[in-house]
């Protein structure tokens, strides 16, 4: 019954985490018999809108996993609460670029749970067949390698898979240029800067030159099968795919793939610090218990177990050793990539801006825009989206 002295918490978790968290919580329940957590799983593709809908409908959970790019938005609408001053230990010891994404107005709004960033998965055997024993670390070299792969891959196969409805690839290329993506206190787009246009041009050229199929993720029935069939040899993804590939690829195939940092314009490149944080919602009447849960989930040993369950990379550097990640040749490259990570702008509208960016980029790939006109178009769309933010800044209502 509801009056049995037990605090009931709801935790929203996305994708894999939704499935894995209940196991992680058994220990928590043992340690905290007065708290009971129920986990609800959301699909990633619907998570953002679900969070906003729940916020609009006053039906947010107590705690939720959120993509760490969304924290600024959750803060702006007043949904998130800052990590309590006396609970700094929860967030201590993380990667700096990731910590930065959780910081809004100088306060930590979320506790990094796991980190990820994207790097390149590739078929060592196919690369070798094409005459390469390592992935070149600059764009030009990388593209040459892709051409070589494409030539040897056989009809109907490609070098790289970059689903045209995913923005992460282009975003990564954009971040690698070093030029900020928004300007004027994040109130205007900066996508027509020559740097970003060059990223657009590189992105587009991979499709134009037949290296990447013009496909969206919904059309790939499953990635690992296609990967092992050689439909593509390079794949842009995060740590979760390591687990997937290990589980789903055949034993024979295990020796034939590896991961490597993303090549940059001229040398190893940056990528966006991804991953999820845990936030406690301001609407929750059970914040104490909620922070207890967050603290538990942030502990080094919990994170290590979490890694074992999901393959997710711990947010705390200390946990990397505990989980033995550094000795894992597939995961080790992530550490370097994370250290090179560059945070994305913290405007609450960012999610939408980046979605528009991808919409335009997809059309560019399909031939509607050149890189230059695409950059201008993204700016135009971004500026419209940021109009309200400019007004709010004028009114002093936004940071």
């Amino acid at each position, binding site marked *: 019954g509801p009056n049995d002295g037990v605090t009931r918490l709801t935790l929203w978790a996305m994708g894999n985490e939704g499935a894995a968290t209940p196991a992680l919580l058994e220990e928590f329940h043992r340690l905290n018999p007065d708290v009971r957590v129920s986990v609800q799983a959301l699909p990633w593709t619907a998570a953002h809108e679900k969070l906003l809908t729940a916020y609009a409908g006053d039906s947010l959970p107590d705690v939720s996993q959120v993509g760490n790019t969304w924290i600024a938005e959750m803060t702006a609408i007043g949904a998130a609460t800052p990590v309590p001053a006396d609970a700094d230990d929860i967030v201590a010891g993380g990667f700096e670029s990731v910590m930065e994404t959780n910081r809004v107005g100088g306060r930590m709004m979320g506790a990094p749970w796991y980190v990820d960033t994207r790097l390149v998965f590739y078929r060592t055997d196919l690369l070798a067949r094409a005459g390469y024993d390592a992935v070149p670390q600059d764009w030009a070299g990388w593209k040459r390698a892709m051409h070589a792969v494409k030539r040897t891959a056989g009809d109907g196969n490609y070098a790289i898979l970059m689903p045209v*409805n995913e923005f992460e690839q282009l975003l990564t290329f954009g971040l690698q240029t070093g030029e900020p993506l928004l300007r004027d206190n994040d109130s205007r787009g900066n996508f027509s800067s020559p740097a970003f246009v060059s990223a657009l041009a590189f992105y587009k050229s991979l499709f134009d030159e037949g290296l990447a199929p013009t496909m969206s993720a*919904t059309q790939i029935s499953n990635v690992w099968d296609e990967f092992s069939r050689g439909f593509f040899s390079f794949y842009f993804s995060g740590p979760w795919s390591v687990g997937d590939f290990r589980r789903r690829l055949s034993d024979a195939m295990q020796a034939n793939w590896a991961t490597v940092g993303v090549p940059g314009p001229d040398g190893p490149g940056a990528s966006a610090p991804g991953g999820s944080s845990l936030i406690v919602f301001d609407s929750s009447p059970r914040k104490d218990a909620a922070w207890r849960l967050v603290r538990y989930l942030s502990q080094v040993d919990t994170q290590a177990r979490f890694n074992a369950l999901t393959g997710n990379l711990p947010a705390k550097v200390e946990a990397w050793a505990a989980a033995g990640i550094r000795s894992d040749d597939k995961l080790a490259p992530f550490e370097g990539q994370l250290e090179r990570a560059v945070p994305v702008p913290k405007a609450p509208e960012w999610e939408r801006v980046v979605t528009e960016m991808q919409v335009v980029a997809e*059309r560019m790939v399909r031939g509607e825009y050149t890189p230059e006109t695409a950059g201008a178009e993204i700016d135009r769309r971004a500026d419209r989206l940021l109009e309200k933010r400019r007004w709010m800044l004028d009114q002093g209502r936004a940071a």
Partner: protein
Amino acid sequence: MSAARTERAAWGFVSPALAAVGLFLVIPVFGALLLSLTDFDIYALADIRNMRFVGLDNYVNLLGNPLFWTAMRNTAWFAVLGVPATIVASLLAAVLLNSKMVKWRPIWRVAFFAPYVTTLVATAVVWRYLLHTRYGVINWVLDGFGIPPVDWLGQPETAIPAILIFAVWKLFGYSMLIFLAVLQTVPEELYEAARIDGAGPVKQFRHVTLPAIAPTVLLVSIISVATFFQLFAEPYVMTQGGPAQSTVTVLYFMYEEGFKWWNLGSASAVAFILFLCIFAITLVQLWVSRRLGSET
């Protein structure tokens, strides 16, 4: 006194329904009109002071928003291609099923109609796999005819036709029923008179069947236009608006604007434009049916 008594009872009977309609339909519609004149968004949801009255700005912005026009154009394509396809399919089915020579007609009638009652989301999921580029049954059949596989849902050029194949499959049974009902009102004697006049099957169709159902073709096309204007779940489930937003419909656009990005003001403006479109269609429909009514 008897009049007073029925009057009182009648109000008791109608007031719950009227209250519900007023509260949950009429007020929200006026609310939508008001909302469309504001920039109500997620910030306003947090703090109502963050809302501004912007007059017709939402409408003006929409007119300048390429995605809106994309949505309008896509929707128009859905209607322009879907309506004739639905009519041809349903008319063909109805004429076949109206023939006394066909066996098990009641069973076929129910079978053809069955897709209409199935859950759209579920059948959309099914069709997504039927339309799959590599493993889909449809490409397999095409393969049998030596046609190379088509990337149905992956290319902007084929995504609308692909969704339409599904939509027609789902919807044609309904129009078929209407046609069947009308065909059954064509008196048998008219066909016999035509036979005595020397008309063969083709002439009978041309001179007896077709004139009889002509008004219904119009009616069905109007109904179908309205239906195609309200496509939402099909793209939501099958393509999420892609590829390259080629399947974003007006309603899908409204949904994203409103419930994904929480720009309720702008979404309300979309809703109103959608309303005006459907309203115009319905006016035409009423006008047509009145015209037809007055002729009989």
